[in-house]
């Protein structure tokens, strides 16, 4: 049952953090709470004007929020890596922010590195109000325990670059520098991203143009890596409808310089909600609707008794795009408090490139 409601970032599980901590009962409660129209939290409405760097910081009036970075990397020997860094925020109650331990925010961090032969991950939790975790817009800094995403001088407010990204688990660690020369991209309709036909939505912007350099250490063996990264920022109060069971999400870096974001929200009635964004190198975007997108699983891997579609055929006839996606490591399984699959992929076909795939609710 856990997985049914489990989410990660884009699956908008409001209950995520509490769910992870509290087990099934809390999970059900959290989910039920989400169905109840925001329950005193701020609502996501179209037409918001984004302001940076303020919007890089937390929005505690909304129930949930995240800062999410995925990187596709390669070392000097040509070995491919993926690295993820995620900070989730969840408010247990609406209302004015309380000081100290009474603060109603709970923070959760996930970090992982993936190679074809291994996938390492770590998870940590913190309460707001005491300084163990948090996000500050200026100078930009997002942290939980010793993990950190920090703006380096001189940071561009509209590009949120350069950044330094660090995380470590018992058997891995990484330090990466992220640079971007282009502005952020607002997803959906000017940053208003619909998640269902019934009006569920989030505020959503991305920085898909990061170039990365740094080092990844697995089992005390460091490797110098370079590559690309994609950051997602999203917040909402009531993101899912009750019949949405899970989520397949992709962020793709095309070799030609375009970027493509796609997601599919699976609904119990089989009417999956699909959406996407085709981002040209200059930053111009084109919205993709359910009818534009074909997503078909082509291979499955069984993990913990669940059948996970790790390879996909994606076709967008309007863009003359038809690709086959395959995972770097089919067992990129995040066996964290709630479980999901997230890992680097590569694709071939009408276009080639690399990206990240996230799947929840299996």
């Amino acid at each position, binding site marked *: 049952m856990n997985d049914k409601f489990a989410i990660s970032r884009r699956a908008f599980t409001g209950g995520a953090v*509490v769910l992870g*901590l*509290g*087990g099934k*009962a*809390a999970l059900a409660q959290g989910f039920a709470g989400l169905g109840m129209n925001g329950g005193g939290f701020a609502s996501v409405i179209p037409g918001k004007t984004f302001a940076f760097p303020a919007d890089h910081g937390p929005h505690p009036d909304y129930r949930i929020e995240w800062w999410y970075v995925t990187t596709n990397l390669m070392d000097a020997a040509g070995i491919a890596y993926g690295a993820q860094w995620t900070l989730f925020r969840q408010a*247990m*109650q609406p209302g004015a922010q309380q000081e*100290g*331990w*009474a603060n*109603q925010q*709970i923070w959760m961090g996930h970090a992982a590195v993936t190679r074809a032969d291994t996938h390492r991950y*770590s998870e940590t*939790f*913190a*309460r707001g109000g*005491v*300084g*163990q975790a948090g996000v500050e817009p200026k100078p930009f800094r997002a*942290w939980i*325990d*010793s993990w950190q995403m920090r703006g380096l001088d001189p940071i561009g407010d509209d590009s949120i670059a350069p950044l330094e990204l660090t995380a*470590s*688990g*018992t058997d891995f*660690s990484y330090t990466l520098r992220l640079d971007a020369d282009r502005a952020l991209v607002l997803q959906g309709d000017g940053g208003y991203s619909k998640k269902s036909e019934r009006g569920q939505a989030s505020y959503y912007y991305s920085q898909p143009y990061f170039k990365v350099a740094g080092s990844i250490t697995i089992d005390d063996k460091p490797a110098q890596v370079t590559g690309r990264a994609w950051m997602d920022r999203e917040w909402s109060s009531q993101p899912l409808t009750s019949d949405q069971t899970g989520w397949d999400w992709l962020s793709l870096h095309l070799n030609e310089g375009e970027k493509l974001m796609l997601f599919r929200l699976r609904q119990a009635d089989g009417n999956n909600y699909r959406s996407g964004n085709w981002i040209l190198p200059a930053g111009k975007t084109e919205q993709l609707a359910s009818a534009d997108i074909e997503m078909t699983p082509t291979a499955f891997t069984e993990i913990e008794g669940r059948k996970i579609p790790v390879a996909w055929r994606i076709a967008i006839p309007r863009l003359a795009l038809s690709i086959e996606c395959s995972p770097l490591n089919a067992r990129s399984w995040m066996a964290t408090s709630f479980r999901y699959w997230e890992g680097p992929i590569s694709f071939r076909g009408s276009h080639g490139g690399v990206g990240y795939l996230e799947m929840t609710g299996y």
Partner: protein
Amino acid sequence: MSRLVWILAVLLSHWRRHPMQLATLLIGLISATALWSGVQALNLQARTSYDRAAATFGGARTAMLVSRNSATFPQQLFVDLRRAGWPVSPVVEGRIQIGGRSLRLLGIEPVTLPAEVGNAPAIGKAGLQSFVTPPGEMLVAPETLSELKLTEGVTPLASDGTLLPPLRVQPQLVPDVLVVDIGIAQRLLKMPDQISRLLVGKAKGRRAPLENIAGDKLRLVEPDAESDLERLTDSFHLNLTAFGLLSFVVGLFIVNSAIGLAFEQRLPTLRTLRACGVSAGMLNAVLLVELVSLALVAGIVGLVCGYLIAASLLPDVAASLRGLYGAQIPGHLTLKREWWIAGITISVIGALLAATTSLLRAIRLPVLAAAQPYAWQQAQHRWLIFQSALALIVLATGGGLLWYGDSLVSGFAVLAALLLGAALGLPAILERVLSLGQRSAHRPLAAWFWADSRQQLSGLSLALMALLLALAVNVGVGTMVESFSRTFIIWLDGRLAADVYLNAADDTQAAEIRAWLRERPEVAAILPSGRADTQIGGAPIEILGLADHATYRDRWPLLQASATAWSRLRAGDAGFVSEQLARRLKLGVGDSLDVPAPGGNWRLEVVGIYADYGNPKGQIAVNIAALTRRFPQIPLTRLGLRVAPAAVPALISSLQDKFGLDGRNLVDQARLKAESTRIFNRTFAVTAALNTFTLGVAGIALLTSLLTLGNSRLPQLAPLWAIGVTRRRLAAIELAKTMSVALITTVLALPLGLLVAWCLIAVVNVKAFGWRLPFHVFPLQLLELVGVAMAASLLAALIPMIKLARMQPASLVKIFADER
């Protein structure tokens, strides 16, 4: 398969014809299993709650960071350490009062609490939101809830008027502890942004060196393999285990004799089965199946009895553990599946052990040997010599252990060797005594009396051995307990020198109370005392500050002292050490020791050694002024008052009214004495109860041996009846024989029991508790025990004898009719 069932049916038909034998066998197995598993249940229960305590406190089981020099430290250090990669979780601790009761309040942080801190994460993470968001929840053990006379969900008021969070029952929680979220605890304890310690999770990863983050403010305390409570209570549990084992062995004696007898009686049947074509392998397999099935049945019944025994003893065990060590054991028994499995297993293993000789003989059984049902009794004579040799070896081993051993385990080994050696030697001794009797007898019937007693010995020896063991242990334990209580009461009289004891809430109140007391004419003296805690060699030590006053000089009992002991204390460079500590550190009067103190080590010369019964910690007594100089931060809230006895009640009630002191903080000598005595009596209540059980089991052993022997005795008795001795007379003779061997055994048990008592007092207690009691002998108690033993024997012997007296002459004639 059906063949196996038929053979089993043939074997089992024996029990239907001899239900008494079956009862004996089952009673033996049941009592062995029951006593053993009952004791194990108690130990298990206690250990589980120590684990729980250790886990809930985040105590000795978890690595911790604590302040080097104060009780608390700033919360920012927690954040700094987390940010440096340390998997730490903050805990704040203090005390609050509810309805006059002082309770430990723990503030935990459920989100970061390490998963390996036992049950605590479950406490914290179930219903996280309601636990952490104000008003939060206050977790409480069911026992504490009922002691507070509160119900779940109510929001109690603390004694200072603060409204506390609603109570929620948490069955895994130890009593007398309240658990709330750290934020709420900081507010209730008025310790904003302060924490008492940081629990360090096991998660590995990159972490910066401690000094880089916390400087020298914090100290890492490594986890102990076992909790403090476990270490402290080890000796108590060893005691229980030893008794459980003894009862188990006594039970197995019964099983052994029942199985041996059944085997002998079934020899012809076994031979017939072989002759009729049952192979040896099949027969042995079926014998084994039969035994294991009986053991399983007995095991299950035994476990149920064990459960009942444990449940009835638990309150005493819990009380003595609380009194002795402050260990909190829940009053209701919860048993794990492992306990049931272990109990059944021990029953089967016990049955197999007890049946080993019989089974081995069955395996080697020749089909053609002439049928000699009671040949084993003759073989017993050879066995007697072997057994006596074994007894000597065991006793010699015990002597060696006594000489060279230096641990509690070796102390118990000495005890076990003494008992086992004596039991093994018993038949030989009885044989000597009876043959002496035989030589001195002149009349034919008297000669027969002794000779037949000797012959009967082999059949009774196991039961008599059990009786000897049970009696000796009874004498031993009885003597120890009696010695203890006598010594303790005398000691307590001296030790509780003041007439009223009070403990003020804080130093300010103490000062006010002292000022007030000085104005009271009935108060002859105010004796301030103080207590500091430190460690020597990793073990906790209490340092007691005593006022320089004639009250102590006159009454405080010292075991050894230098001539000017009391005046030497004044200078602050000398102290008394408790007997336990003196033994542990091998200190004598004139030696010196270094006591860790805040300002550096404090060198003290030992000028006296005093008894400190019942204290698991080592203690040092020094002058109170010297103590406050060395430990400036200790509270000076404890006062002893010398008051004329008649004035005590009035003084106490005025103190209560004026300063709001309750029974926990204000107590008169008489109550304290009664309380202490009660605790100490309960300490040995369990021992005494097990003792009684053991004696009961031995009584059953005797009864069943006599009953099973009864029938086989007929061929010996029939000729006497034939030559004109009446049945009534025969029964009387039989009774006299049984009683005389029982009496001899009982008389032998007395010196053995005194030896056991000496062993307990001089070896086991010293190792277990660190104190040695003076050894007293209590003749009246011994006499009483002899009476009980003889009554038990009489009761056991009576039933078979009545059967004999009422036996139909035809049954006796039959002895001659078919020569079996």
